[in-house]
């Protein structure tokens, strides 16, 4: 009887696991099969021409470049802020002090806040400063979104480094900043993974940039111009009643999926590779 129960559940479990793996392939296959046929060189090399959304020519270069601008900008800005914070709670502050615990707690909360809320908040900031939808607003909002991701991922990696390392560097007469550098060097693979992770999140998010970066058919030439993004490009094309345009949405989805998958694989690859001198 017990054996029967076990066999039953084991079969169920295998089914579930297979289902999950299967869904991944299903999704990728669906996107590829629907999107590949509409994929053309024009799509990635041209911006939308007039009437693009009702079927005329052009491509989504505006969205591709816009997404790249926003993603790179926000990751750089995000790192500038999150690295000092992580170093502060791991090196400068006394372990387990109130500030450290409060900070980790705050970032736990921030981590769970959905991107639409960040988008709405970004909007309120924009209005407050009298800005229009722009590349800058988009970058700032996406940065807010990914800082908790960066902090959390990097913090996890740094906490793994044994305390002994700090004792050694301090007893050799290092300052806290110098010790932090040793800690950073030790955590490079983890940091890289965090960066690639947040890259993936930033490039795929629509809710954040909807209010803030706006949308445009051209490629922004300065930070106060609106910028198009891939997820929004997909969304808008999908909402069009014209089959041709909808198909292009699938192609755009394919491009985005490929980008994200490459990023994900790169994250895993580099994570494994960069552990030569580690403890």
């Amino acid at each position, binding site marked *: 009887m017990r054996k029967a129960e076990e066999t039953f559940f084991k079969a169920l479990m295998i089914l579930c696991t297979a289902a999950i793996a299967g869904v991944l392939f299903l999704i990728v296959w669906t996107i590829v099969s629907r999107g590949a046929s509409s994929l053309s060189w024009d799509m990635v090399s041209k911006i939308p021409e007039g009437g693009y959304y009702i079927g005329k020519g052009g491509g989504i270069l505006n969205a591709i470049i816009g997404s790249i601008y926003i993603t790179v900008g926000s990751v750089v800005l995000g790192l500038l802020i999150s690295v000092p914070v992580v170093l502060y709670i791991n090196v400068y502050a006394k372990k387990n002090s109130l500030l450290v615990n409060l900070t980790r707690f705050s970032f736990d909360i921030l981590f769970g806040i959905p991107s*639409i809320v960040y988008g709405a908040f970004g909007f309120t900031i924009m209005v407050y400063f009298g800005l229009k939808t722009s590349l800058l607003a988009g970058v700032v909002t996406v940065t807010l979104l990914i800082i908790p991701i960066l902090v959390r991922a990097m913090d996890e990696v740094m906490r793994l480094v044994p305390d002994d390392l700090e004792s050694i560097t301090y007893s050799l007469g290092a*300052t806290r900043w110098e010790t932090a550098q040793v800690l950073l060097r030790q955590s490079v693979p983890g940091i890289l993974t965090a960066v690639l992770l947040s890259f993936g999140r930033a490039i795929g998010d629509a809710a954040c940039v909807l209010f803030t970066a706006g949308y445009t058919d051209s490629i922004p030439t300065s930070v106060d111009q609106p910028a198009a993004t891939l997820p929004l490009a997909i969304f808008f094309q999908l909402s069009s009643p014209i089959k041709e345009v909808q198909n292009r949405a699938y192609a755009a989805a394919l491009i985005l999926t490929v980008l994200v998958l490459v990023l994900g694989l790169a994250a895993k690859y580099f994570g494994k590779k960069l552990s030569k001198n580690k403890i």
Partner: protein
Amino acid sequence: MIRERLITDKLAGGVSRTLTLLSVFSVLLLGIGLLTRSIPVLRQVPLTEILFSTEWKPMKGAFGFAAFILGTFWVTGIALMIALPFSLLSAIYISEYAPYRLRQLIVPLIDLLAGIPPVIYGVWGVLLVIPFIQDHLAPHFVQFSTGYCVLAGGVVLAIMIVPLIVNILLEVFATVPKELREASLSLGATRWETVKKVLLRRSRPGIIAAVVLATSRAFGETIAVLLVTGSVVQVPHSVFDAGYPLPALIAANYGDMLSIPLFDSALMLAALILFVIIILFNGVSRLVLYRLEKQMA
């Protein structure tokens, strides 16, 4: 040389500390920012109407969010009901039964699933889930369905949160010491009984934490549900009804926002409501977790 090093040290410390303090305040800042923009509509419309009325006619100044709040709960509820069993069973299999090689293969696959952008899920939902519901599922139950319904939203969301739950569960299961499992097995229990009586009991706090995180994610998911739930302002009465979750509301009406009076304020309020729901939910579950962990210690 020592002076320069000390100055660098102090400078770096000061900058880091400032940024850290700012981060701690940012949660408050978020709330306050949204609140300030929501005040206009809060002043006009009584809170009871906002939270409990289903009348949503922005042009007439009627801002009842109940339909949207309920829509969010419907979609999230469906997603959880689908995702939980799958994730739990799968995680148990991967952690306790699967051969090493298989595990090496499956875990990265699940991570990849986790990284797919929501909009892609939405597109896939439109391509596959909607037609399936419309043509194959709904006819058994209802007269007419376009396929755009809360069930579709729930299904898509479920797939999105499965990798999240599985990941956390795998971590949690890994913290249960091998010796505990061995002790149970050497008393003659089967692997499944060990799972039921030892592993799951030990992992209860972790499982709850995973569910909480996944629920928060589901509450806030915007674009995937926007594409498949139908965007009809009504309270769903069955899974085949269309719905309009809160995040979808905010995203979909962005264009009209500034042309109707108080509409933009109402949307900011919607974001605030979402923010508050998620924080309250997280807070309550943290409390529950804390109690549970104390009990188990």
